[in-house]
C-alpha cells in the first residue's frame, strides 16, 4: 500500500495551502472506488439517485483532510472567542463539515453558494484561506472583509460565494436571484441557497421558491437540518419537519448530511435536475456539536447524551476515517499525522492573524458606496470627524 506521504494533495487543491511539495501521485489514487451511502435517499416527487457513489482514494483523503481542517478551525475559533479575541457573534459549524465538502466535490466555482451566518467552513470550501478567516473573525485588516464584516459576513465573489448573511431566511430569495441571473446570462451553472431548519418556515422562502419554479430557475435549496433553530427543536417550530417535502410542487430529497459521499451524490443529482427542470430541495440531515452560537452552551435544550451519541455514531470525519482504513488507503497513524499537520496549519494561521493590525480609522468611511461623488459622511461628532466619500 502506498504511503499517504506520496499522495499528492496538490492536484486535488485541498483547502490548506501548506501541503508539502514533495508528495506525488501514484496511479492508484484516482482509480474509482464505489461506496454505498450510509442510508438510502428519500425522494419527494422525484426518483432518488442511487446509493452507490463513485469516489477515488484521492477524494476520500481530501475529504478527510478538509473536514479535519474545518473541525480544527472551528474548535480554535471557540478558544479565540473565549479569550475575547473574537467578539460579537460566532456561529460554529463543527459536525456539519460533510455538507460543505460533499457539495464542493459535486460542483465548480462557477456554481454559486449562498448561506446564512454559519459560514466559516463554507467560505473555506469555496477557496478562502485560514488566515483571512481568523483575521476577519478578530476584526483585523487582513480579514476577508478587511475586518469590517465579522463572522457573519464572509464573501468571495470570484469563487461564487455570496455570503455570509445575518438575517434568517434572507439568503434564500437572494440565492434564487443569483440563479435568475445565471439563467439570464445563459451560464449553465446553478446556485445552492443554504438555510437551516429554523429558516425553513420563513415566508420569503416560499415566495422565492414559487418564482424559481414558475420561471424554471437553476436553484437548489439546501436545508441544513441540524434539528434546532437556536434553542427551538424542529418539532416545536414546524408543523411539518419534513423539510424536503415542504416545497410541495417542487421535488425534494432527504440526505444523510453526515455522509460526505451522500451529500456529493445528492448535489450532483440536484445540479443536473435544476439545470433542466428548475428548483429542487435538498434536506441535509446533519448536527451541530456547538450551541447555536458562542453565547449558547447548547445543552439547555438537548441532552449531553444526544450530542455524544451523534458524535459516536454519525461523526462525518470518523465515517471517512473508517472508510479510508477499511479500503487500505492510509494507516491510522498517517491519518493522525494529517490531523497533526492540520492543527499546525491552524495554529500558524492564528499566529499570523494575531499579528495583523486592526483596520485604519479612515476605513470607517470606505466602501459605503462604490461611487461616493465626494459627499460628506460624519462621525459621532460631525464637527470633529467628517470624511469625504470618494
Amino acid at each position, binding site marked *: 500500500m502506498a504511503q499517504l506521504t506520496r499522495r499528492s494533495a496538490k492536484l486535488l487543491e485541498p483547502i490548506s495551502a501548506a501541503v508539502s511539495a514533495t508528495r506525488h501521485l501514484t496511479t492508484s489514487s484516482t482509480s474509482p472506488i464505489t461506496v454505498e451511502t450510509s442510508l438510502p435517499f428519500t425522494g419527494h416527487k422525484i426518483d432518488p439517485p442511487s446509493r452507490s457513489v463513485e469516489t477515488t482514494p484521492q477524494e476520500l483523503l481530501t475529504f478527510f483532510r478538509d473536514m479535519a481542517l474545518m473541525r480544527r478551525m472551528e474548535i480554535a475559533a471557540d478558544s479565540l472567542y473565549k479569550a475575547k479575541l473574537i467578539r460579537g457573534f460566532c456561529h460554529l459549524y463543527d459536525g456539519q463539515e460533510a455538507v460543505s465538502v460533499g457539495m464542493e466535490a459535486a460542483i465548480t466555482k462557477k456554481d*454559486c453558494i*449562498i448561506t446564512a451566518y454559519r459560514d466559516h467552513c463554507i467560505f473555506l470550501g469555496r477557496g478562502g484561506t485560514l488566515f483571512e478567516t481568523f483575521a476577519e473573525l478578530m476584526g483585523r485588516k487582513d480579514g*476577508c*472583509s*478587511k475586518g*469590517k*464584516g465579522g463572522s457573519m*459576513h464572509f*464573501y*468571495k*465573489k470570484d469563487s461564487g460565494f*455570496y*455570503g*455570509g*448573511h*445575518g*438575517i434568517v431566511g*434572507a439568503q*434564500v*430569495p*437572494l*440565492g*434564487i*436571484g*443569483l440563479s*435568475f*441571473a*445565471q439563467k*439570464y*446570462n445563459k451560464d449553465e451553472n446553478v446556485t445552492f441557497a443554504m438555510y437551516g431548519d429554523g429558516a425553513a418556515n420563513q*415566508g*420569503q422562502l*416560499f*415566495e*422565492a421558491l*414559487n*418564482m424559481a419554479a*414558475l*420561471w424554471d430557475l437553476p436553484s437548489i435549496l439546501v436545508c441544513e437540518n441540524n434539528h434546532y433553530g437556536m434553542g427551538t427543536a424542529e418539532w416545536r417550530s414546524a408543523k411539518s419537519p419534513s423539510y424536503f417535502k415542504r416545497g410541495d410542487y417542487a421535488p425534494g430529497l432527504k440526505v444523510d448530511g453526515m455522509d460526505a459521499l451522500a451529500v456529493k451524490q445528492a448535489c450532483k443529482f440536484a445540479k443536473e435536475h435544476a439545470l433542466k427542470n428548475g428548483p429542487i430541495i435538498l434536506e441535509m440531515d446533519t448536527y451541530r456539536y456547538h450551541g447555536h452560537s458562542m453565547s449558547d452552551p447548547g445543552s439547555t435544550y438537548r441532552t449531553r447524551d444526544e450530542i455524544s451519541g451523534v458524535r459516536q455514531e454519525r461523526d462525518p470525519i470518523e465515517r471517512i476515517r473508517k472508510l479510508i482504513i477499511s479500503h487500505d488507503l492510509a494507516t491510522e497513524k498517517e491519518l493522525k499525522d494529517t490531523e497533526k499537520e492540520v492543527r499546525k496549519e491552524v495554529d500558524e494561521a492564528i499566529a499570523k492573524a494575531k499579528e495583523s493590525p486592526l483596520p485604519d480609522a479612515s476605513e470607517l468611511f*470606505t*466602501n*459605503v*458606496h*462604490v*461611487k461616493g*461623488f465626494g*459627499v*460628506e*459622511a460624519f462621525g459621532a461628532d*460631525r*464637527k470633529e470627524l467628517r470624511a469625504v466619500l470618494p
Partner: protein
Amino acid sequence: MQMMVREALNSALDEEMSADPTVFLMGEEVGEYQGAYKVTKGLLQKYGPERVVDTPITEAGFTGLGVGAAYYGLKPVIEFMTFNFAMQGVDHIINSAAKTNYMSSGNINVPIVFRGPNGPAAGVGAQHSQCYASWYGAIPGLKVVSPYSSEDARGLLKAAIRDPDPVVFLENELLYGESFPVSKQVLDSDFTIPIGKAKIEKEGNDVSIVSFSRMVGFSLKAAEILAKDGIDAEVINLRSIRPLDRSTVNASVRKTNRLVTVEEGFPQHGVGAEICASVVSDSFGYLDAPVERIAGADVPMPYAANLEIIALPQVDDIVRAAKRACYRSVPLSATR
C-alpha cells in the same frame, strides 16, 4: 417640447435597456398590464419577457431576488406598485442591498434601482399614502432620489440605473400625468443628472423654500403669490434626499437668511428636520428667523376629502410659513 413625467420615465427605461443588456425590469404588472401606472408601457413588447418580468404579489421574495441578481452583476430595476408595499421587502433594501458593499469591503456591490410611486395620491387612505423619503434617507449605503419634473425624471432615472450602488427612486403618482418642457439636451440618450445635487428652480433673495417631488410645484406657486407681496423667494428642488445637497441649501440660506422646508411626509424625524439641523449646525449665524417646517399632518391619512386636504401641505401653508419667516409676525411661544 412638452413631455409627461410618465413618458420621461418610460423613455429613460427604454434607452437604458437598449444600451445595456444587463438592465431588466421586475415588478407587479410591469409587463402584460403595461405597468400599473403605464410607466413601463410597451417595454415588454420591445424587450421580451426575460427582461420585463411580471412577478407574483410577493415583495419580500422579489425584492430579495432582485438584490441577488444584482449581486451576480445584473442591473435590476425593481418596481414597487407603491412604496407602501416595499415595506414587505424593506429588509432586502436595507440589509441585503444598502449594507453589502460595506460589509464585504467592496467585494460585492449592488447596482440595483428600486422605483415606484411614493407619498400621497388622492383619496387612497392611510395604508397607501405614506412618504418614505426620510426612512430611506437615513440609511448609509443607499442613494435616494426624488424627481419633480420630466427633466428630473429622465436624468435621475438614467443616472440611477447607471449607478453601481443601490438607488431608491421615489416617484409621485400625481406627477405622472403632468407635462413639463424638455430641451433637446434632456432628450439626448446620454442625458443624466448628477445624484446628490439640488437644483435652484427659482432664484430669490428673501427666503429659501426647500422641497422635493410634488411639493416643488406647490413651492413655485407659493413663490408667485409671495412675489405679489414683495417677498422674493428662492425655490430649491432637492432632487436627491441622500446624499443631501447641504452646500446648496446652506449657501441659499446664507444669502436669504430664512428657511422654509416643505414635504408631504410625517414631520417627526423627517427630511425637513435634517435640513433644519444642517442649517442650524453650519449656518447658525446667518439665520434671521427660526426655520419653518411644513409637512404632512401627524396623523394616518384620512379618506374624507376635506380631511385629506388639511392632512397635507397646501400652497397657502407654504405662503404663510414664508411670511412668518420674513416678518416674524408670530411671537415665540416659549418666551411668553
